[in-house]
């Protein structure tokens, strides 16, 4: 079990993650998976699932190269870049939240958690703004094959961000009151949020950049 500073042996740093030994009841050293290992299983599963969606996208792209190229020109690269920067910032803030929580600085952790939620919110707003813009240009879900994939991938990712809000809500709830704080749940929530960011990057690459 990951150790909190001061409760036992000092945590070591390996690749930026804490490798802690649990000396409370003489157990063998805990594996260094932050948060619930179950969440990592879920992350793996979702990544495989999204990979299958990306493979399908690429297959249809090679079959319809011209159409896809043409439709992609309608997308604004700047919005895509902005989205990516916003999500990366949210990952940074959630990592700081975990770090602060590990060190017992809970006010700072809460601030970073709220910052993460704020960045997520900015992402959502900019996504909706982009969709409205595309619809006004006449590109809807049913326009052509490229836009089918575009709306599908961005929507399913959007849904994962919404779920991320619920997860961050749990994190905030945990951090708020001393009676409830669970480092494991905070790290589990952070793992999920990192996944949301990590899944966005290939979507960004495929839809906006690869031309």
């Amino acid at each position, binding site marked *: *079990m990951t150790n*909190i*500073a*001061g*409760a036992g042996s000092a945590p070591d740093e390996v690749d930026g993650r804490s490798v802690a030994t*649990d000396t409370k*009841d003489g*157990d063998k050293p*805990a*594996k260094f*998976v932050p948060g*619930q*290992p*179950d*969440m990592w*299983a*879920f992350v793996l*599963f*979702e990544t495989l*699932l999204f990979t*299958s*969606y990306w493979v*399908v996208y690429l297959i*249809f792209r090679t079959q319809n190269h011209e159409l896809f190229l043409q439709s992609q020109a309608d997308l604004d690269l700047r919005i895509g870049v902005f989205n990516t920067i916003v999500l990366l910032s949210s990952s940074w803030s959630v990592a700081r939240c975990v770090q602060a*929580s590990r060190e*017992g*600085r*809970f006010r700072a952790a809460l601030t970073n958690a709220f910052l993460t939620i704020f960045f997520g919110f900015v992402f959502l707003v900019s996504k909706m703004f982009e969709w409205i813009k595309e619809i006004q240009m006449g590109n809807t*879900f*049913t326009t052509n*094959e490229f836009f*089918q*994939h575009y709306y*599908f991938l961005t929507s*399913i990712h959007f*849904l994962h961000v919404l*779920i991320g809000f619920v997860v961050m809500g749990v994190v905030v709830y945990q951090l708020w009151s*001393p*009676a*409830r*704080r*669970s*480092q*494991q*749940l905070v790290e589990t929530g952070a793992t999920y949020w990192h996944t949301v960011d990590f899944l966005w990057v290939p979507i960004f690459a495929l839809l906006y950049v690869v031309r």
Partner: protein
Amino acid sequence: MSAATTETVAPRESPSGSPLHRFVWHCRHNPKRELWFAWWAMVTFYNLFVVSFFVLARAQPPPSPAVDAQGAAQWFTDNHYGVLVGMGIIFLVIGLLIAPTNALIAYSMRRMSVSRSFAYSYLAMYALSAIPGMLLLCIVLTVGAMRPDRDPELIYWLYDLAFLSFTGTMGVFLIGSLVWMVAILLDKNRVFPKWFAYLNLANALTEVVVAPAWIFKNHVFGWNGLIAWWIDMVVFGIYTGVFIMLLRKMIEREDFGTGPLPGPLPGPLQELAPSKEHDPSELTRTAP
């Protein structure tokens, strides 16, 4: 968890001997026979479902939505007897097999430390799900197949109704999976590993991914499409296989108490799991 509780659960040794003899003994004496009855009903159901839908009726994988009226009529002609017999099997067994399936899953939630309303919600939702989500397809395909000389335009309408209702009944499975997920996440009785809760989330999301089947008639989002059907079916198949296995483990571990289930949590992640439940007080010791 104590030896005393397990004693009351297994007072006798199960016998050796012929399979029939052992089966009869278990029916008579196994203290968990009700749970095993429900579990075997569940396994039988999924097997019969595959036989009826995939092999006999060939309603799964579904035929294409991109056909015209003649194409739809042709499908019914090609599968006439398969549909009628396959659907007949479903009409025969679905109630008997699916009710204990839902009862067993509801029971798993009742065994958890959460409110019983989770169990009852799940039971109510999934009980009703079979009608729009499966029986409608069975009835409509039967009606479509039984009169081959019907006007193709009418057959076309029945074809759409059957396959759209089956693939497109989404809400029950969406919300039902989320109910199970929340129950597992809150549970302190260690009935299921937490990763199964997240798998429920993945299953719930397949109901979102299938929604475009109501909009598209071809490519990847049609009711037989690569994304809306094939990938979704893989996720659903994995999910189903996993919960069948997990329910089996639950029955094996069951001690008919109300506390945490004894024995190791099933699944490959157990050695990574913390040795105790998280202790909320651990953080307060270092709180500023």
